[in-house]
């Protein structure tokens, strides 16, 4: 049985090439209802957000976070998602738009069932710096509530704006905060 004990040195095995996937910033929850990545450089081709999130809500309230670009709160955002529930009730599929400029964050529901439970998501924002096309996103995420509504979700979204994205805000829908065990990391992908 191969047992691969190995090293964990940054750069090991990476060769001499220029990294194409770069860490831009990491933000942790601090009970604030929103976190932002600002002054995002336009030098990458795509962006990725990798997160684990939980709400500070003290009750059994379900919650989710929304995504806003460039502080745009007037444009209508669109989202579609397919989710599989723990309840085994079959796949559910939804599509909707949000006015007021808050993209439904791909049903990245976060739920406070003790801060050791976090809901994960990986969000890809494609061609974010383009000034000739609208912006699109895709996401793989999950929700952990320890009830029948635990789920895995695949979603997509669009922001119908040709502006280059230079700011991304993640906003808890209910106004509760991101607990301190929440982590949001932004990466740039070169192309």
């Amino acid at each position, binding site marked *: 049985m191969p047992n691969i004990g190995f090293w964990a040195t940054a750069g090991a095995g990476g060769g001499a090439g220029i990294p194409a996937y770069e860490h831009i910033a990491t933000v942790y929850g601090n009970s604030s209802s929103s976190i932002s990545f600002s002054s995002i450089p336009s030098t990458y081709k795509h962006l990725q957000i990798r997160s684990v999130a939980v709400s500070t809500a003290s009750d059994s309230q379900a919650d989710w976070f929304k995504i806003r670009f460039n502080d745009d709160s007037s444009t209508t955002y669109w989202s579609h998602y397919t*989710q599989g529930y723990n309840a*085994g009730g079959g796949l559910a599929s939804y599509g909707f738009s949000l006015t007021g400029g808050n993209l439904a964050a791909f049903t990245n529901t976060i739920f406070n069932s003790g801060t050791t439970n976090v809901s*994960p998501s990986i969000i890809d924002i494609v061609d974010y710096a383009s000034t000739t096309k609208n912006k699109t996103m895709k996401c793989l995420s999950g929700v952990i509530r320890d009830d029948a509504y635990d789920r895995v979700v695949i979603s997509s979204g669009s922001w119908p704006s040709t502006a280059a994205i230079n700011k991304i805000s993640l906003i808890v829908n209910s106004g509760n905060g991101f607990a301190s065990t929440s982590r949001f990391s932004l990466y740039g992908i070169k192309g």
Partner: protein
Amino acid sequence: MPTQTYVPLANLTLSSSQTTVTFSSIGQGYGDLVFVFAGSCLSGSADFYIRLNGDTGGNYDRWFMQGDGANTETFGNAGDSPFRVSRAVLAPGELTNITMNVMAYSATDKHKTVLIRGNNASRSTEAYMGRWGSSAAVNSITLLLGGGFSFAAGSTFALYGIAS
């Protein structure tokens, strides 16, 4: 010199069939881990199992949805041992690819979550979320197949660390 963010930690191609593969002594200097598998099994039809830190207890919960061209399915259950990718299964002569993201693997203040995509073009595509109910940092990952089946020679296993 630019700092690498998506760092290759280990890469294995089996020269002969094996029943298990373990990545051990995983360093704690990254934010997430990404595991990529492409391969098949030597015989039978096998679920793909993923065990963290050698934990053989019923501490793994999973939720998935899948489509196989004829049917769709969603399912969830708690108390598995270990994570089980059970629709995009492995079979001889068929290529299955599985990508697993272990989120915040080195954190010690939260349970560990995984996001997985499993694909076998001859059978099914699957999206999967799992939770390992432990706040321990992940320091080893063991891959094995159900039913005691073996990974076929030529199967590849790669592990990456993503800095944060």
